């Protein structure tokens, strides 16, 4: 049987694979992908052997930097970034949670000053083996990533 890609291959650019199912559109907004006028293809709820379901994002003619990739780590901690040239993967790396995360997460604490004043949110990320703990610099509350439900996207 002929093997077919669910999302068509790109000649040049970046493939963000193994995105947590349901988060691809948030990442598209977070990285402001449509503004570059480059072709962006998104696949939602694709079957994944490892995770059951996954999302995938393909951006033509744009190479994602490691910093940009790490910015999405909170939304897709298991994502893989593939840099493509002439339909071939020339670089592949996993996202890494940065030590600090600015202006991405909305603090879930309604009485946190960041939800009431016009300021950039700031979180410290602490990785303990396979769990991540996010601490708001302002209200000092700590959250696991599944408690974060809103993003500045």
């Amino acid at each position, binding site marked *: 049987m002929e093997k077919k890609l669910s999302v068509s291959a790109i000649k040049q650019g970046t493939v963000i694979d193994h995105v947590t199912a349901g988060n691809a559109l948030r990442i598209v907004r977070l990285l402001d992908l449509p503004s570059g006028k480059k072709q962006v293809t998104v696949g939602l709820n694709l079957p994944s052997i490892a995770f059951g379901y996954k999302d995938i994002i393909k951006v033509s003619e744009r190479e994602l930097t490691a910093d940009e990739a790490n910015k999405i780590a909170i939304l897709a901690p298991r994502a893989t970034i593939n840099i493509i040239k002439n339909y071939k993967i020339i670089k592949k790396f996993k996202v890494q949670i940065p030590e600090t995360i600015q202006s991405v997460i909305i603090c879930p*604490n309604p*009485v*946190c*000053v*960041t939800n*009431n*004043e*016009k*300021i950039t949110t700031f979180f410290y990320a602490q990785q303990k083996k396979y769990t991540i703990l996010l601490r*708001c*610099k*302002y*209200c*000092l*509350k*700590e959250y696991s990533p599944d408690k974060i439900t809103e993003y500045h996207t």
Partner: protein
Amino acid sequence: MFKNKSIISIKDLSRQEILQILKTTQALKKNPKPKLLEGKIMASLFFEPSTRTRLSTEAAMLRLGGKVIGFSDPSSKKKDSLYDTIKIVSNYSDVIAIRHSLEGAAQLASEAAGVPVINCGDGSNQHPTQTLLDLFTIQETQKKINYLHIAMIGDLKYGRTVHSLANALTHFNSRLYFVAPESLQMPHEILNDLKVKGIKYSLHEKIEEVIKKVDILYMTRIQEERFPDKLEYERVKNVYVLNKKFLEEAKHSMKILHPLPRVNEIDLDVDSTKHAYYFEQAQNGLYARQAVLGLIMGKL
């Protein structure tokens, strides 16, 4: 070490720094320095009502020879952003004391201000000078700060004073006892933190279970204003009322502390016992805040 340092959370202070503040507090209690901050101005910005903290912080500044400007009227909340307000006020003053209902407000203030900021309470988050005066009082009454047995009683879930105190006591190898109804017990994050730092603690529902063992009984008020559920408040508000009878089995040197105000949790008949120390504790707030002011303004 302290010059121009903002005091936002007790967690920002190392053991060494805490001990230095306690030493300075003791020195100022013994030998007042009425001219130390002459010519300096403190802006006292109380966006939320407060009696003890505001008066003792302002009195601390005045007793060191400084002057105080500011407001204590919550209606003075205008439409200005907090950031802008602090930016402007820091041009008028040498230090800012702030209380605000929003958690993290003092951190934001310290980023906006060009002068050091003292957090006098940001919602149910942090109130570091309360913790410093508590530590000072514990040390004063027990003549030491390490290896003490300390019970915290009442609202351990919403009470910021007990959160900060438990955190600070991790520097001093305390044995902690948390006495509260299940719904008001110490939050898991704090218990986890204690576990990680190797601090021994136990959870209790009755004061009788701990009274014989402890050096300090730290009572707290069940704070109606912090309760999201008023029914739950009605259910637990009078669950602990300390009276003379409880104290019969206590150690002679055991002292009762309370951040005040009290509602019903300490019977008036306890006030005359040798164990009551909460009014002296409140007075120590004056000296602890003097120490903080003198240190962060680089005068001590």
